[in-house]
């Protein structure tokens, strides 16, 4: 469990520049960065509030929904994390890497809920996606 959390933090905390650069709007990138700073400082509700501000500017940004799911996961709000990651997946059609992350996040939330089947299914989906990416 802990291992997975560290992985999530790693994603949230360190991959900012690459993602920010991928975003056309500087405003969103600035808020995303601020939110991640708050996340690292363990001020989760602040991080969430900043992500919501960014989502008002760019509601179809799958990365923002993913990060919000990450915040809820960190707060042990498993169901919220799952549905936010699902929302991110709906929007991340062209971003397989993000979808892998979303499925991994959902798997963690399932574990949080002690739902083994759901966790297994989500991990399976993440693996299938990962295989399809590496085989290309």
């Amino acid at each position: 469990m802990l291992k997975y959390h560290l992985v999530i933090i790693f994603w949230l905390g360190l991959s900012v520049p690459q993602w920010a650069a991928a975003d056309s709007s500087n405003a969103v990138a600035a808020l995303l960065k601020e939110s991640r700073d708050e996340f690292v400082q363990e001020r989760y509700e602040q991080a969430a509030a900043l992500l919501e501000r960014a989502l008002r500017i760019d509601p179809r940004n799958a990365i923002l929904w993913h990060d919000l799911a990450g915040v809820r996961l960190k707060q042990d709000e498993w169901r919220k994390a799952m549905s936010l990651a699902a929302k991110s997946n709906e929007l991340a059609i062209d971003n397989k890497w993000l979808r892998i992350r979303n499925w991994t996040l959902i798997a963690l939330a399932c574990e949080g809920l002690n739902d083994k089947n759901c966790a297994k299914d989500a991990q399976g989906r993440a693996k299938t996606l990962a295989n399809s990416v590496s085989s290309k």
Partner: protein
Amino acid sequence: MFFKKAPPSRIKNKNTRPVLKRSMTPKKKKASVFMRLLRWTLALIIFIPTLSYTISLDVEVRHQFEGKRWALPARVFARPLELYPSLRLSAKNFQYELENLEFHELEEKPQQSGEFYRKGNDFYLVTRPFKFWDSEEPARKIRVRFDGNKVENIADLETREYLNLVRLDPVLIGKIYPTHKEDRILAKLDEVPPYLIKALLAMEDRYFYDHNGISVRGLGRAMLVNLKNMSWSQGGSTLTQQLIKNHFLTAEKTLHRKVKEALMALLLELHYSKSEILEAYLNEVYLGQEGDYAIHGMGLAAQFYFSRSLQQLTLPQSALLIGLVRGASKYNPRKYPDRAIERRNLVLLQMFQQNMITKEQYDQGRSAPLEVSDEAPKSSSPYPAFLELVRRQLKRDYKQQDLQSEGLQIFTTLDPIRQHQAEKALISQVRKLERDHQYLRGRLDSAITVTAPSSGEILALVGGKDTDYEGFNRALDALRPIGSLIKPAIYLTALENSRKYSLISPLNDRGLEWKIKETKQIWSPKNYDGKEHGTVPLMKALINSYNLAAVQLGRQLGLEKVKETLYRLGVEREIGSYPSMLLGSIALTPMEVTQMYQTIASGGSRTLLRAIREVTAHDGKPLSRYPLTSDQVFDAASVFVLSYGMQNVVRYGTGRAVADDMLPDEWRLAGKTGTTNEYRDSWFAGFGGDMLAVVWMGRDDNKSTGLTGGGGAMRVWGEFMKNARPQSLSTQLPERTEWRSVGARAAGLPAKAGRVKIPIIISHERDSQTVQAALAAAEAAEEEKASQNPSDDDNTDKPE
């Protein structure tokens, strides 16, 4: 809370006993004992009640001051405007926002917070600092440049850099008042400009720092001045006494009250420091009236008269406020500007004479204009309908008393620009329809809600055509049958089963008799035009709102299935299992319809509608948040296909008359009309990428309006959308969905649409072939129909 206890004064308790020094004769001794007893008795008779009275006053003073917090109304704010390059916002709407924020327009570049200067498409402004839930925004000197209907860039005029994001302070949209209708903005002593304090002391109590609560010198001086001027211009009571009088006592002028006031003033000074007393005075003093609401304290008065914060007041403005202390109505600068100037100049003169300001400052101040804002900020909210919704949501989480007295700051989702557009659209279209139809004159009413699909935030809400009137809130409380607005729920139930249904599935639009088990009655619905259209593609039935096809489909799917879809969409009211439900006999409020359509507009995820984002204490400390939630209750692919169908309602179906008339061809917006029996209710629910608007139109007496959904409610919707300029719906396909080309008639669209691409859900490889076969079959069927009856271009039916 605001007053710290001063260290208790030390009472010297010397245990002294009287010593008899001389011996006395028995007689004298007897008399002296008597006298002594008498003296003691008298002393006790006077002393004990006085002591107990003083003690009781002391308890009262301390209790009131330490326990007392001023009743501060909760302040309700609109959403703050976030400015960033590429934001879709016109210069006109930006100016509207600034006016709402009571920014002062200047003829030159501004230097102070709350001022702006417009030069063509460039706005120069100094923002106000504001403490938000998540962070504090500093005051910034910026230039906002517009290009067409967009923000081109934002430049920081001090650092000479371009800014990514600037958040303005939020518009105050209303207050939740305590029952005694007092209003104030609490000020801390260190925020009060020194001139204001100097002016106050010059006029009201020049020995403030020297006396102990009452000032004989001050009283004598006041009497002298009054005698000299032959007028009662100076009262001679100290600030402490005035505070006691305003805070604790009634206005009666009796000796008893005077004594009580003096005693309490002494006690107050005993316990509290001069700064504490001064701060209390500045927050308590009465400075004006707006309708039923009393303006208390310098903080609110600065807003009320000058639309500025206390810190921003100039010397003459400070002097004017101090001039009001003695007679807020007599010297009311809006009513009696000459008197107010005269009074202000008297204050300045006093300050000059007491060496508080220089001759130059005096002369400049004396010749300054009044600078009072034209209109007093309204005490009642301009958005009573939205505020009502906020109150209802808050009531669930907060005690009424806390809302009225704790000075909570409520940050809501209201967008004043959208609200303005919604009000304008509703009023103008209701008026127009009343003008066009004699029988509707004065009788038609309407309601509209506007939300952001992705977040569920309520951007605007209008409860009736009298938008300032806090009466029947139709948006929240008008419970009306929803008519054909229910049909997307039936079609969504079908489209979820993508192996069986798609937009081209043939549906049976023929009459039927439905026997109701319980009542043994037979229900036989009709189409709007009285015709049967035979076998029609699903999309055609949807866009033309065919009743028979919808009922036949609903029967096939099962009432329970359709009900379940409605619940999943967010309907919370209980729905009965009777067939007429399939034609929208169930009654919902516009707000409930909004929740239902929100789920469709957001691509299948249910998001709770919210009017409030955050609540903070009056000092900005975060109390609670109402976070964004999202629950994917429908497969995004099914909802995408349904939305595509609903786009054609607007373009080619029951909505086409309004769309042709009001909306540009290239906008991709989706929606659905609704009309109920005898035209009692006219509905339209429709959305773009960033906005959903639901409109109801009808009469409060529930009589016929003679209007269809397309002829009534949709006109309000169209007018609103035209001005609000929503984003077009995305064409990005969800997973498992493909565009497939097909002839217009096979897709259920008029032939003039030519070949069109429609979204089809393909879950498995083999689906692809099945779909292709179905498309070919649909085209063949339509060709055959066309050859049999060449003049029949089916989409010329009257809309619904």
